[in-house]
């Protein structure tokens, strides 16, 4: 059985841009090991909410804490080090770096060798780089990307780019992984593969995952719980079954099929 300790706690979080409340009063809890979906119509504030969690935006109200530690006001790179890692809706790989180097960048915070030792090529530089390289190659094997490790990221086909982005996010060793529309632009077969991959990494890395997705089949298929965001506010949460039958949710989607 999974432990039921609380990992992420969001209390009354929100942000306003000028007079506009983009997200407000969001209360959300994730337990260790959960796979939770975040859905909502276009412009509901889902990605903005991710940006709040990852420190890209600083919340103007409320608190966000990870495993009891308050995150508000931390810079994104610090939040990543504390254990939240993400992918982006519009893929943001390091295009001119190789697949291997993309993953190595995520290992950067683990590097033990200083700038000084790299500049003067001290032994710690070589051991540190070697360790990173070995880990990165091992890691790429899990994602079946080891055969393209020397390709430039920008030259990968779309599906592999999505996979690489997830791999890179995982390499940063998160406790909580945020996936922003991982299936966007994928065909049904690729989406199936993605679902298997998500299930696999969750087992393997004992992760907690929060997932934004438009593909209802995917969300309803893999998520244990679902939160629904509309106009920057949470309007519902519950199991897929409850969400499917929630009149508020159906109204928010205004005729869009929820099943």
């Amino acid at each position, binding site marked *: 059985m999974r432990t039921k300790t609380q990992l992420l706690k969001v209390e009354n979080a929100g942000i306003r841009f000028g007079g506009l409340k983009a997200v407000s009063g969001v209360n959300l809890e994730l337990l260790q090991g959960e796979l939770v979906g975040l859905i909502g119509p276009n412009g509901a504030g889902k990605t903005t909410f991710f940006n709040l969690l990852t420190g890209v935006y600083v919340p103007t109200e409320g608190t966000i804490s990870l495993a009891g530690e308050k995150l508000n006001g931390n810079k994104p790179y610090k939040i990543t080090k504390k254990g939240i890692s993400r992918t982006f809706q519009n893929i943001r790989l390091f295009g001119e770096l190789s697949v291997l180097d993309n993953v190595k960048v995520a290992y*950067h915070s683990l590097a033990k060798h200083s700038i000084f030792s790299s500049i003067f090529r001290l032994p710690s530089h070589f051991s540190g780089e070697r360790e990173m390289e070995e880990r990165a190659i091992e890691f790429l094997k899990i994602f079946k990307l080891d055969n393209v490790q020397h390709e430039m990221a920008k030259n990968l086909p779309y599906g592999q780019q999505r996979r690489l982005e997830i791999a890179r996010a995982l390499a940063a060793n998160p406790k909580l992984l945020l996936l922003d529309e991982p299936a966007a632009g994928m065909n049904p077969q690729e989406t199936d593969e993605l679902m298997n991959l998500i299930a696999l990494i969750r087992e393997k890395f004992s992760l907690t995952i929060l997932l934004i997705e438009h593909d209802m089949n995917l969300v309803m298929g893999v998520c244990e719980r679902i939160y629904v965001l509309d106009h920057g506010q949470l309007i519902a949460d519950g199991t897929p079954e409850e969400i499917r039958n929630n009149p508020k949710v159906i109204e928010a989607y205004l005729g869009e099929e929820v099943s």
Partner: protein
Amino acid sequence: MKKLNNAKGFWGSVVLAVVFAVVVQFLINGGTLNPFYVNALFSIGINIILAASLHLIIGITGQFSIGHSGFLAVGAYVSAIITMKLGLPFPVAILAAGAAAAVAGLVIGVPTLRLRGDYLAIATLGFAEIMRIVFLNIDYVGGASGMTVSHLITWPWLIACVAITIIIIVNFTNSTHGRACISIRENEIAADAMGINTTYYKVMAFVIGAFFAGVAGALHAHNFYIIQPTNFGFLKSFDILIFVVLGGLGSMSGAVLAAILLTIISTFLANYPEVRMVIYSLVLIAMMLFRPQGLMGTKEITSFFKLGKSAQGGSQDANKNTVA
């Protein structure tokens, strides 16, 4: 295995550089190279240092700084004060020039590197102008008429500085720290999300780049007999910028090659300065229109040699593992 090749390539380059340095020294001593060529050689060396240092800021880290002459000026004046006013030896001047420029880089970098793209460009340009105007108004360093400086530069000092600059910048680039900088160039938001302290690395690249620009300033001052604020205007920054752009943003060997090539060309066009500038500007425009990635793109010269060997393994790997 790769590390072994890596080390072999590195020591190979060092041996080659030493052989080259000794041969040139003999040519200078023997009088085979007349002063005109020796002078051109010194200019090439100084420009290589400038190109390499700006390459780290623009090519690797992607921070579009067009005020590099500001650091050059700081280095030149500080070194000149140290040798001419304080009477200390030349090596001290070189180090102090680098350190002073690095401090200037830190002071200007911390606030301005939060800016993006064209705003950063304008801010760095403004910084260089401020430095020029400051030196123009300090009587201690001669104001507009400048300072006379002894010709202390020698071939061993020059080639040592060039080699150290290249080795340090290449070593920095080919490490996790260099990758952090490249990731900022490629996508700053993603780099941040991957745990890279983007501000720290931008400032670091800026400071290292400024340090070597300062070193180049020391060599420059002790090569040209006189330094004046007008030597360090926008045009000087532009001269350095064109090395990096023409060579290929992100390619060290491209920047170095462009520095060599353009220094030779401008030496021959020294008597026709406006023709030189017209040609430069046309080349720059044509380059952006037809080959915006520069001569080399982000590739290094070594990747062309290794291409055949590692055809199956993927060629991109080659350019990331070269040391010198």
